[in-house]
C-alpha cells in the first residue's frame, strides 16, 4: 500500500522533472521556440532537471517489483531535488540582492522565482516530510 504511493510519487516527479528539463533544453537550442513564463530556456539547468528526473524514474521498475533497495532512487532523487531547490533559491536570492543594491528593484519581479528547479522542489518537500526520517535513521551525523 505504502509502496504504491512511493511508486506513484516517483513516477510523477520523474516525469515532471524530465519534461521540464527537455523543455528548458529545447527552448535553449531552438531559437524560434519562445520560452514559457514558468519554464526558462536554460541548457545547463535543463540538464540538471533531466538527471533528477532520471534518478526518480530509475527507481520505478524496482519499486514496482518490490526489489529491496529500489527505494534508494526515490531518496537520492528527493535529496537532489531539495538540494537544487536550495541552489535555485539562493541564486535567485543573490540576483534579487544585487538588483536591490545596485539596480532598480522595480525591474525585478516575483516571476523570476518561477523556475522548475525551485517549484518542483516543493513537491519533494512533501515527499521528504513523509519518508525522509525513515531513510536517514541509518545515516549518522558527522
Amino acid at each position: 500500500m505504502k509502496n504504491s504511493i512511493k511508486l506513484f510519487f516517483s513516477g510523477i516527479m520523474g516525469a515532471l522533472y524530465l519534461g521540464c528539463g527537455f523543455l528548458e533544453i529545447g527552448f535553449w537550442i531552438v531559437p524560434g521556440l519562445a520560452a514559457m513564463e514558468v519554464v526558462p530556456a536554460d541548457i545547463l539547468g535543463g540538464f540538471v532537471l533531466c538527471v533528477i528526473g532520471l534518478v526518480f524514474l530509475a527507481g520505478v521498475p524496482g519499486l514496482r517489483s518490490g526489489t529491496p533497495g529500489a527505494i534508494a532512487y526515490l531518496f537520492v532523487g528527493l535529496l537532489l531535488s531539495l538540494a537544487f531547490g536550495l541552489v535555485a533559491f539562493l541564486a535567485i536570492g543573490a540576483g534579487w540582492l544585487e538588483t536591490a543594491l545596485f539596480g532598480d528593484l522595480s525591474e525585478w519581479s516575483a516571476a523570476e522565482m518561477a523556475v522548475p528547479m525551485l517549484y518542483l522542489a516543493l513537491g519533494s518537500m512533501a515527499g521528504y516530510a513523509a519518508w525522509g526520517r525513515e531513510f536517514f535513521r541509518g545515516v549518522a551525523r558527522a
Partner: protein
Amino acid sequence: MSKKITIALAGNPNVGKSTLFTAITGKRQHTGNWPGVTVEKKSGSVRHHDTDIEVVDLPGTYSLTAYSQDEVIARDFIIDGKPDVVVQVVDATSLERNLYLTTQLSELGVPLVIALNMADMAEQRGDVIDLQKMSKYLEIPVVRTVGSKGEGIGGLLDAVVRESGTSPHHEHSIGYGDRVEPVIADLIEALRQDPALTSRYPPRWLAVRLLEGDEDAEKKIKVSRARDAIYSILSGIDAGEYEALMADRRYEVIAAVLPQVCTTCVGEMTASDLIDRVVTSRYLGIPIFLVLMWGAFELTFTVASPFMAMIEAVQEYLAGVAAGIQPGWLATLIGDGLIGGVGSVLIFLPNIFILLFLLAILEDSGYLARAAFVMDRLMYSIGLPGRSFIPMIVGFGCNVPAIMATRTIEDTSDRLITILINPFISCGARLPVFVLFAGLFFPENPGTVIFGLYVLGIVVAIASAKLFRATILPGKPAPFLMEMPPYRLPTAMTSVRHMWDRGSMYIRKAGGIILIGALVIWALAASPAGVEYGSAASYAGMIGQAVQPLFAPLGFNWEMTVSLIFGFVAKEIVIASLGTLYGVGEDAGALEGALLADPALGSITALAFMVFVLLYLPCIATMAVIRKETGSWKWTAFSIVFGTAVAYLAAFIIARGGALLFGGVIP
C-alpha cells in the same frame, strides 16, 4: 596549583575526529601547519577541573607505518612531541579496522585512552559493546563518546587526566608468535648497542618497524652504530613474509577480542550501501556527479556575485574619498595602491568561503570519496587521480579557490601537478578580454573563438600534466587505496569551522603577497612623480616599451605589452590598462575604435594576444595561493616561467604561422 598536560588525538580518517576535537576545545583552537610541510595542524586547549589540557589533532591515519606524510607526522609527534596521553578516536561502527591502529599505538608505550566515538550509531543499529570488558582485554581505558552531540566529553577528560598521572605504561604489545618473536628479540638485542636510539624510541617498536621494512626506521638505523648487527639479522630473513605474519597476527588478536566485547549487527543493507548503488551506478553515476558540480559552481560564483559587488562598491567609495587627499601622490598611493591592493585580496573572499563551505559539506558527507571513485578512470588516463577533477572544474570560475581545493589530494606529486596545470584553465577574469577582442576582430563568430580558447586551455593543461609526469614529477598517480566512508549528515558547526580555518589561512598566508604585489605594480605605474597613472611615461610604461622588442615577433605593440604587465594584478585589468594607454580612459566604445584603428592589430595578432592572455603567468592572487599551497617559492617561480614560456610559444606559433599562411608581414 593547576596541572598542565598535552594530549594528542589520533585515529583513522572519517571517525569523527575533528568533530570530537571541536566538541572538546570549542572555540579555543587555532590552525597552522606542521613544520616543514603543508599539512594542516590543529591544536586547542581546554580546562578540566584544575588541569589545563592542550589538545593536538593529529592527521587521520590507518596505521603508523611510513606510508604517507600524514602517518610520519602522527608518529613523530607521538614520539618526539611527548604527549602525556594519546587519545585514539575509534569509530564504534567499524571496530575491527580501527583497532588495528590501537595495536600499533600500544607498541609506542605512551598512555592511551580510547574514545569510542559515534557510539550512538552503533547502538542504533543494534550493536552491544561492553566497555568494561573491552577496557579489560585491551588494558586501555575506553570511554563512550558522541562527538556530534558533545556526549561523553567530561568522562573522556576524566580518563585522560587519570592516565596522565600514571607512569609510562608497560608496553602492552601483542605477541607475534613463535616465528616472529625470536627475530624481534634478536633485533632488540642488537638495537641496545645504541643507547641513544633506544632511549628515544621504544626498542620493540623500532624492531617491529624494521621487520616491516619501514623506510623511515631504516634511515634511523643507517646512521646508528647498531647498523651492522641489524643488517646481518635482516639479511638472513624474508622480511616480506614476516610483515604479512605480523599484520595477520594483529588482526587475529583483534578477532579474538572482538566477539568477547561486542555483538554487532553487520551484514544488513545499510543506508550508505543504498545511496552508493544510485550515486555510483553505471549510467547515473557520472551525470549525478556533473550535476552536483554545476550546483557547486553556481553557488560559488552566482551567489558570491552580489557580495563581490558590495566589496567593489565599498572599495570605490573609499577610493573616491581618498581622491580628495592632498598631495596628489598620497591620494594615488592610498586610492590606487593601498585600497586597490586590499580590495584585490578581499574580492576573492566570497568565492573562497562559499567554495570551501561546499567542499567541507561534500567531504564530511562522504560524497567527495565517491566523486573521486566515479571520475578516477577518466583522470587516470591523463596521469592524475580522480580527486584532481574538482579543482579543474572550479578553475573555470577562478583559479584561486580551485588551487585551494587541491587540499583534498593526499599524494604530494599528484597535488603539485594539479596545482601547476590549474592556471591554464580559463578563469572568469579572462573572459572580458576574450569578449572584447573576439567581438572586434572576429565579428562573424566570436562564440566559436572564445569556445576554442577554453578548449585550448584544457588541452594545454592536459598536455602539461602528461609532460610533468614524463619529466620532472615522474611516476603514476598514487595508488587509489581509498576508504569509502559511510555517508553522514554534515553538521553546520564542523563545516563552518573548516571553511573558516582554511579561508582565514588564505588571508594570512596569501593576503600579504597579494598586497605587496599590488603595491609594487602601483608604484611602477604611479612613478616618477607627476605622471598619469599607468601611462607610457610611468616606470611600468617604460618597462613595457623596453621589453617590447621581445614581443615584436608576436606582433604585440608596446601598448599591448604594457597592458600584459598590468594583467598580472588581475587579468581583466588588461582592458582598463589598454584604455589608459590608448588615451581613451574607460570609454569602452572609444577603446574599440582605437583598437580597430591601430594598424599593428589584425585578427591574427588579436588571436595571438588572446592566447597569450589565456596562458601567461597567473595573476598575483593565484601566484600567492600557489606559494601558500606548495609551500615553495621554487614551484611558484616554475609555474610563472612555465606558463609564460608556453604562452609565448603558442602566441609565436599563431603569429608566425598566420604570417606564413597569409603571406608577408603580420597583418
